C-alpha cells in the first residue's frame, strides 16, 4: 500500500489506534519512499535500523493503550539537531564525522512521544541560506516543477530537505528550524505548512547554534492540524536552555475550531514591496477575502520599521554566528586540517576553518567579526539592536490596537531554479526573507500556509503572524485560512 506515506499525522494516528495499520508498516513504506527518492537529496543520513526499532516499540506501546499522538509516526529530523550516535553535521564539512554523545531536547521529546526517526535531512550549512545550495551534501531538490519544464527548483532554505521530504511524502512530517524564515520560506516553496513558535517555546539545547537570539525549532507538516500536533510534542520547558519559557504547553490541536468570527486581522501596508509579482499581491488579497468571509475583521495597520528588518538581521545574525561558530576550532570535534612543518595553534585554527566552512558561512562569520570589532560595535551592532527594539515595538503597537494576527505573503516569489542566484550578490539572496525575518527579530510565532498555485503551477504561501505565546490562536486562524483556501495540489512524481 504505497499511499501510506501520503497520510497526515492525524490520519495515521487514527489508523494506528484502530489497528488499520502498524507503525512498522508505515515506517517500511517511508523507508522505501526515501530509498526511491535519492534524486531529491532530502535525506542525507538514513537511519533504517533506528526507525525499525522505534516503530516496533511504538506498535507495542499503541497496543498497550494510552500512547501519545506522535507515537508510531515516521518523521525526518533536520541535520541541525544533535541526535545521539547519528551524524549531525549541520550540513557542514567542519562537523564531518561528528557523532553526538547526546540528544537534543526537541528530538528527545519526539522520541519520548514515540515518534520514529527515519533519518537526517538536508539543509543549508549551519542554516545559513535560503535555497539549500550552501549544503556540504549538495542541493536538496524541490519535488515541484514548473509546468512543462524539468528544471530543478530549490525547495527553499535553510530547512530545504525537510520541506522537500514532506512535500514528496517521504515522511509524514519533519523538524525544521527558523532563524530568519528557514521554516516558513521552504514551506511556502513546497506547498507545506511550517510554523515557527514564539522564541522560547522550543528548547534550543542540542540544536547546533546559528544566531541564538533568533533560532527556534518548529514542525514542517502536510497540514495545519499536523503542525498543531507535532508542535505540541516538540515544545517543553527545558532547564538546559536558559531562554526556554517556563510556561505550560497548551493543547494546540484543541484550539482548531475553525471559528475566527470577531478576530481582527491586520494587513501591514509596508509589506507591499516594490516589484513584488502581481500574483503574490493577488494571493494576499484573496487571503484577506477568505479571512473576512470566515468572519474576521480586516484592518490596515502600519509596521513602520519593516524596511530596516533585513539590514538589522544581517548585523545581528552574523554577529551571533561569529561568536557561536568560534567553537569550531579543530580541537574538540569535527574536521582538523593537516598541518605543515612548523605550523602552530593559529595555523591549526585558520586552516581548519578555511577548509571546514563553506563560503557563505565564512562570509557571515567575517561580517559578524567586523560588526563586533573595536570601533564598529556601536555603529553597527548596537544600532542594529536598537532598531530591533523598534521593530518589536511596531508589532506591540499593532497588537495593542486589538490586532489578533497579521496576514502577509510568505515569500516575494515562488520557488526559483537551483543555480539561478549563483551570480547574484549575497544581498539578492537575503531578500528572500523580507517577509519572515521581522518575526524572528520580534520573537513572535509565524506560520506559512499554502494558499494557491502561480501561473506556472508552483505553490505560493501566505504567512500569519501571531501574538507571543498565542500559537493556539494563530494555528486556529491558519486552520480557517487553510480550510478556505482548499489547497490540495501535490507535485507530480518524477523522481
Amino acid at each position, binding site marked *: 500500500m504505497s499511499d501510506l506515506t501520503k497520510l497526515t499525522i492525524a490520519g495515521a494516528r487514527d489508523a494506528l489506534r484502530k489497528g488499520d495499520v502498524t507503525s512498522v508498516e508505515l515506517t517500511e513504506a517511508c523507508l522505501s519512499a526515501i530509498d526511491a527518492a535519492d534524486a531529491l537529496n532530502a535525506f542525507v543520513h538514513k537511519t533504517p535500523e533506528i526507525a525499525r526499532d522505534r516503530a516496533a516499540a511504538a506498535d507495542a506501546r499503541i497496543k498497550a493503550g494510552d500512547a501519545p499522538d506522535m507515537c508510531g509516526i515516521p518523521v525526518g529530523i533536520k541535520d541541525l539537531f544533535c541526535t545521539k550516535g547519528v551524524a549531525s553535521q549541520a550540513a557542514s564539512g567542519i562537523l564531518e*564525522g561528528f557523532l553526538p554523545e547526546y540528544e537534543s531536547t526537541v528530538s528527545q521529546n519526539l522520541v519520548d512521544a514515540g515518534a520514529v526517526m527515519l533519518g537526517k535531512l538536508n539543509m543549508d550549512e549551519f542554516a545559513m541560506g535560503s535555497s539549500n545550495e550552501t549544503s556540504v551534501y549538495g542541493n536538496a531538490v524541490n519535488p515541484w516543477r514548473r509546468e512543462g519544464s524539468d528544471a530543478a527548483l530549490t525547495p527553499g532554505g535553510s530547512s530545504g530537505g525537510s520541506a522537500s521530504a514532506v512535500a514528496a511524502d517521504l515522511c509524514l512530517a519533519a523538524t525544521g528550524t527558523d532563524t530568519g524564515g528557514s521554516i516558513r520560506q521552504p514551506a511556502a516553496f513546497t506547498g507545506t505548512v511550517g510554523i515557527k513558535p514564539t*522564541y522560547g517555546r522550543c528548547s534550543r539545547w542540542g540544536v547546533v547554534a546559528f544566531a541564538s537570539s533568533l533560532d527556534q525549532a518548529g514542525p514542517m507538516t502536510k497540514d495545519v492540524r499536523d503542525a498543531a500536533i507535532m508542535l505540541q510534542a516538540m515544545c517543553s520547558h527545558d532547564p538546559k536552555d536558559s531562554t526556554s519559557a517556563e510556561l505550560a504547553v497548551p493543547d494546540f490541536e484543541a484550539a482548531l475550531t475553525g471559528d475566527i468570527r470577531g478576530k481582527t486581522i491586520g494587513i501591514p501596508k509596508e509589506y507591499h514591496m516594490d516589484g513584488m509579482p502581481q500574483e503574490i499581491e493577488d494571493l494576499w488579497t484573496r487571503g484577506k477575502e477568505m479571512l473576512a468571509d470566515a468572519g474576521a475583521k480586516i484592518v490596515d495597520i502600519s509596521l513602520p520599521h519593516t524596511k530596516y528588518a533585513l539590514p*538589522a538581521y544581517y548585523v545581528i545574525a552574523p554577529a551571533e554566528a561569529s561568536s557561536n561558530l568560534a567553537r569550531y576550532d579543530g580541537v*574538540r570535534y569535527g574536521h582538523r586540517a593537516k598541518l605543515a612543518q612548523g605550523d*602552530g595553534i593559529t595555523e591549526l585554527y585558520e586552516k581548519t*576553518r578555511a577548509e571546514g566552512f563553506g563560503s557563505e558561512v565564512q562570509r557571515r562569520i*567575517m561580517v559578524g567579526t567586523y560588526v563586533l570589532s573595536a570601533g564598529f560595535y556601536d555603529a553597527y551592532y548596537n544600532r542594529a539592536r*536598537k532598531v530591533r527594539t*523598534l521593530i518589536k515595538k511596531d508589532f506591540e503597537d499593532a497588537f495593542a490596537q486589538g490586532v489578533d494576527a497579521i496576514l502577509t505573503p510568505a515569500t516575494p516569489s515562488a520557488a526559483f531554479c537551483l543555480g539561478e542566484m549563483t551570480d547574484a550578490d549575497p544581498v539578492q539572496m537575503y531578500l528572500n526573507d523580507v517577509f519572515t525575518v521581522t518575526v524572528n527579530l520580534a520573537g513572535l510565532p509565524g506560520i506559512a500556509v499554502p494558499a494557491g498555485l502561480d501561473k506556472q503551477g508552483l505553490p505560493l504561501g501566505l504567512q500569519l503572524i501571531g501574538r507571543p505565546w498565542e500559537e493556539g490562536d494563530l494555528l486556529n486562524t491558519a486552520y480557517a485560512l487553510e480550510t478556505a483556501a482548499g489547497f490540495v495540489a501535490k507535485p507530480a512524481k518524477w523522481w
Partner: protein
Amino acid sequence: MSIDEGTAARVAKLARIKVEEADLPALAQEFNTILGFIEQLNEVDVEGVEPMTSVTPMRLKRREDVVTDGDQQAAVLKNAPDAREGFFAVPKVVE
C-alpha cells in the same frame, strides 16, 4: 565606509579563517556590498532607544550552585580529532 583589502585581511585574521591573498579583493567587494546594505540603518532615529537584550521579557533563570554533571571524560573526548592520555592534543602553544 569602504573596506579595502587590508581591512578584509585583518577581519579574516580576527575570525581565524585563512584567506589566500588572491581572494582578498573579491572578499572586500562582498563586504562592501553587504555593509552598503546595512548602512540603511543610519536612516533610523534611534535616539533614546534601548538596544534589545532579550526578545521576550524574561529574566534569565539561575540554578543552585551545585555539581549536576561530570565524570564524562570519555564522552567529551570521543569526537576529538586528536586525544591523548585523557586530553585534547594540539600543536605546541608555548615556546
